[in-house]
């Protein structure tokens, strides 16, 4: 139910109630869990990842360390899928497996119906690594010419396309400069330029905003939204929740190498949740949410998960002349979900300290 994001932009239905429930153990279970790994036949998946597993050998005794375990997801044409997870959760390993940079222990990946091990499957894929580094003896334009040749862009179209992508990433005026004179942010931009150079159908971006200043982040975000509007399919990894919320249609949260949950952001309550304190003088009205808390000073604390529910609460309070003495805004549902999933990791980190 949740695995495939629709092509349309996310509609902000603030009345929708999420399907997530939190178990007593503190883990998050998705009620519409990952029962259907691939999209329906009506909307073909650009990429299908099934039960991907990868472990690494480490240390003197070459002990096996889990990289990822049973990662499955698929991304429909034109949608943006975000891999969200803390550092070391397995985002980059998943991407490396998809691109055949590391060899998975098991599982399967199909890119536009082709086996991921076939180099031809990457003909319509653009990739930006987490720490982009390129031949520093080349200028920005020479680097893009090199990639354009690898992408078989014809000589006639090459120059125009390079100018176009340089403009898109705001690097036109630096195109003649050698890459060893580039800052980290400039490398990130030129990396993005090489990723979109071949006008790919699928973009795989590993931490595309890292290393960018706030203005650069905003520009890249806008660029990604433009690409999304142009119908590109995007997989991006990040641990920055607000960026993911703005760009992605679907989010897969990785924890310790496993896909903890895959969620369609259309079906979550985007934005923020709210806590209101009501000063009740008489009996508690029946419209109060069941999870309300009675405070020591007699006030009643109510949690609402969306603007729509907040509006209803305000209407009810107004109708029955119940004063709302305070209103607190909380972080987004996605961030909350992310924090809940990673609570155990956070506790472990705290204990380790």
């Amino acid at each position: 139910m949740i695995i495939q994001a629709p092509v349309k932009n996310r509609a902000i239905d603030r009345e929708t109630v999420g399907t997530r429930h939190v178990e007593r153990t503190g883990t998050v279970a998705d009620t519409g869990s990952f029962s259907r790994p691939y999209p329906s036949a009506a909307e073909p998946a650009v990429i299908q990842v099934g039960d991907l597993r990868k472990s690494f050998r480490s240390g003197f005794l070459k002990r096996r360390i889990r990289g990822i375990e049973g990662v499955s997801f698929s991304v429909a044409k034109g949608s943006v899928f975000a891999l969200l997870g803390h550092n070391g959760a397995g985002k980059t390993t998943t991407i490396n497996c998809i691109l055949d940079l590391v060899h998975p222990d098991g599982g399967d990946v199909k890119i536009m119906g082709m086996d991921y091990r076939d180099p031809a499957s990457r003909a319509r894929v653009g990739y930006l690594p987490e720490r982009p580094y390129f031949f520093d003896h080349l200028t920005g334009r020479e680097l893009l010419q090199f990639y354009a040749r690898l992408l078989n862009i014809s000589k006639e179209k090459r120059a125009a396309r390079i100018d176009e992508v340089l403009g898109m990433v705001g690097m036109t005026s630096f195109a003649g400069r050698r890459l060893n004179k580039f800052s980290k942010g400039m490398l990130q931009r030129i990396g993005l330029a090489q990723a979109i150079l071949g006008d790919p159908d699928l973009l795989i971006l590993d931490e595309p905003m890292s290393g960018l200043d706030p203005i650069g982040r905003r520009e890249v975000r806008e660029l990604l939204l433009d690409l999304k509007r142009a119908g590109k399919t995007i997989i991006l990894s990040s641990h920055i929740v607000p960026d993911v919320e703005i760009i992605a249609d679907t989010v897969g949260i990785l924890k310790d190498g496993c896909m903890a949950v895959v969620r369609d952001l259309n079906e979550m309550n985007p934005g923020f949740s709210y806590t209101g304190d009501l000063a009740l003088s008489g009996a508690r009205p029946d419209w109060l949410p069941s999870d309300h808390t009675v405070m020591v000073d007699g006030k009643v604390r109510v949690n609402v998960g969306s603007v729509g529910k907040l509006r209803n609460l305000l209407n009810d309070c107004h109708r029955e002349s119940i004063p709302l003495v305070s209103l607190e805004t909380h972080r987004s549902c996605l961030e909350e979900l992310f924090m809940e999933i990673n609570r155990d990791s956070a506790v472990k980190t705290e204990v380790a300290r």
Partner: protein
Amino acid sequence: MTGNILTLAASTFLETVRDRIFYLVAVFGFIMLASTAILSPLTVGAQAKIMADVGLASMVVFGLLVVVFVGSSMVRKELDKGTIVTILSKPVGRREYLIGKFLGLNLTLVSMLAVMGLVFLLMLFLAPGSFSLRFLGAFYLTFLELTLINAVVVLFSTSVSPVLAAVFTLGVFAVGHLSQSIRDFGQLQSSVFQRQMSELVYYLTPNLEVFNLRGAVVHGAAVSGQHLFMATVYCVAWTVLRLVIAGSIFSRKELRG
């Protein structure tokens, strides 16, 4: 496929050029001039032979230095810096990548040998009576020898560190020039083990003496067409074998994006 290989080869060539590798050619020219100036008074009547000897030996030494020290770090540098991941995320096969790098370095080698050869012939031309086109055969055999060494260094660079790759390659170069002698020496031993070991060394290392007719050429002998043909076949066979093994190792390598 061919397009990708050529693109990668051109890029590798450009990288070596911008790394100022051709400064070595200037050093070569200086050695040629110095050998003329310094050795002339000591070698009455044999000035041209000494010059040709020093010149041809310098070509091998400088060519070897470039192949070993550029080749040993060529792939590793890209693995360490991560430039390789964006290349292999394009529709480029790993074997294509490796062949492209090999050809790029060979292009550098050809260019260096060509320039050094021209300097060499120019110096001989200026020394009366010593210029001869038979040296072209020696140039070609040197090129074949270093091409084979290039394939060896590419093979080592896919599996061990640059330092070890350089040491192993220099070892193959040394043993390659001695392999026939090692085999002959082994056959004289009474121990079966020693005989078998010398045979093993002979078959595991290329016989680089096939390409070493420099002494004969300096003393006026010409390289026959048949020898050039057989040396070419020998070089191609060893090179292809080494690249196939290197490609197989490199295909299994784990890269980090």
